[in-house]
């Protein structure tokens, strides 16, 4: 398990967090319990299994929802 912190462009509507959450939950290999999307700091935090899903795929899923990623960090 790795944990990722992804900094997004400014989120303007609280329903954005719902959309991103939905997109992430649809991915296999993400620990759904750990998904934390903060509206004000526009950050996504989650744990994922790198054997099943890569950080690139996660970023892609968010991107496809129409949100740009500024910076992501995996530990």
């Amino acid at each position, binding site marked *: 398990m790795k944990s990722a912190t992804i900094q997004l462009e400014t989120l303007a509507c609280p329903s954005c967090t719902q*959309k991103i959450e939905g997109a992430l939950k649809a991915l296999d290999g993400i620990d759904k319990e750990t998904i934390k999307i903060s509206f004000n700091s526009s950050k996504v935090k989650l744990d994922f299994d790198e054997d099943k899903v890569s950080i690139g795929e996660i970023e892609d899923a968010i991107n496809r929802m129409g949100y740009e990623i500024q910076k992501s960090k995996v530990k």
Partner: protein
Amino acid sequence: MQRYILSNKNKIILINGILIGFGFFSKFALNNINVFIWSLILASILGAAPIAIQAYQALKVKVVSIDVLVTVAVLGAFLIQNFEESAIVTFLFLFGAYLEQRTLNKTRSAIKELTEMAPETALKQMENGEFEEVDIDDVDEGDILLVKTGAKVPVDGRVIVGEASINEASITGESIPVAKEKGSNVYAGTILDNGTIQIVADRVGEDTTFGRIIELVEEAQDSKSEAERFIDKFSKYYTPAVLVIAIIVWLFSRDIELAITILVLGCPGALVIGVPVSNVAGIGNGARHGVLLKGSEVIGDFSRVDTMVFDKTGTLTVGNPSVADKEYYGDNIDEVLGYLASVERESDHPLAKAVLEEIGETTISPVENTEVIKGEGIVANVNGHRLAVGNVALMERENVRISEKARADIKRFEKNGNSLVLTSVDGELKILMGVRDQIRPGVKEDLQKLKKLGVKNLIMLSGDNQGTVDVVSRELGLTEAHGNMLPEDKSAYIKKLIEEEGRIVAFVGDGVNDSPSLALANIGIAMGSGTDVAIETSDVVLMNSDFSRLPHALGLTKATARNMKQNIVIAVGVVLILLASLIFSEWMNMSIGMLVHEGSILAVILNGMRLLSYRLR
């Protein structure tokens, strides 16, 4: 394609707006209805594209978002060939969202300023001994780093080479530079004013003090109160409900115009965003002024506090005894001060430390035949004179004559809560000093401000004897003061206030031995120097132990709580007025609905933004 449209949203808004403008120009100025209709159709399609894409994406993950409502509404308007409305609604919706994002960035700016102070690179010593610039993520504990003038200290660490003065305002709030030399601790996020140092990293990234502060503030701005969680849940069902209602209305009335108007009017927006906006602006203002507020729950509780309990030592007082009053008798005082310093520097008594600090630089003479009399003081020979330094009992033992004036002075000093240090030379009283733990400068005024803000009871608890406690209490004008209290007595007292008397209590302490009280009180306020564990256990932290920030903190939470209520009233009020006007008036349509709706969102954001510039009057 989808991504291309979304990333060019701003251009789309512009073209969309121009087309609408051009359309109306051709209608009224050129009397050309054809051009009017075609420009509006074009504007509608262009404007609807990004909204529809967002709606589609939301539906794919089973979320009925506002985009869905607006897309359906625009489609409906298109269907009944009301291109004027379809075009204007898309424009207002997109332009509103653009303005919201811009203004939201403003409300978040204060916290962003803080996070942007985090260091991003460091000069790290590589294997060949050279220093190279690396990303902050590549720095590990134990690495040796070089910090030059003007640079940020990248980690928490220790100086191993060099000297420097460092501005630690980012973590302590104190902007006077602090001198650092070999062995000194330095903190991430502080700025090197002058000098060059090499440091070894002890803590990096989120483990540094600065990293912890940032994390805490970021978590605070997104923490949700009970009410907000309710609103979130509510809006999850509310948006689909609006869609269902619109469909039902259409089925029964067969009036598409009415149905799509309901869709637009029903958009939640101001309600969902109103409270978080106040929250983030309030916490941001606090962060700028050295007050860390941990979330909106804390803001709500703190704004209702009616009783404040203070620890005495280190909170209301400086916590460092010093000479507060002094009187000299006779001549040659400079000489006597030198003798006094010579004797006191050999003692490790706390009073001696205070006396030495008061005297400062002086001539030191050799001291002989020192004799310590327990509980009274010191007798010694200096330069052939017999010196006695101690309390009144020692003076009596030494048969020192104390004049009427001196007796009156002694009485006055004692009444002020001083411990006395008398000095006699060859049996003659020369100096009288009163030592006490001094009240922090400005505390009295700050307490008055708290009272003005509506705190009814100001209570002090202390481990000191009741006499000293009473003196401080009288001077500060407190409501109650209790001495001889152990830490467990303090927490029991707070428990009693909350449970038996039903008060809302804030406890203010330095967190050293009063963490049970900090935890028990409704609001625990820690006087943190920025490095304390108290940061983690309390609800509110006053950076740099600055008591004067307390009234600002209380005023700010009150203003923030008020601001949240105003935003809820604006949001709910606007929806009610819109619905009422739909039923009772003729002029309500989709475009006006969208305009008012977007306007109310901007209104709550702008209202929240006022908090950023809040200052206590």
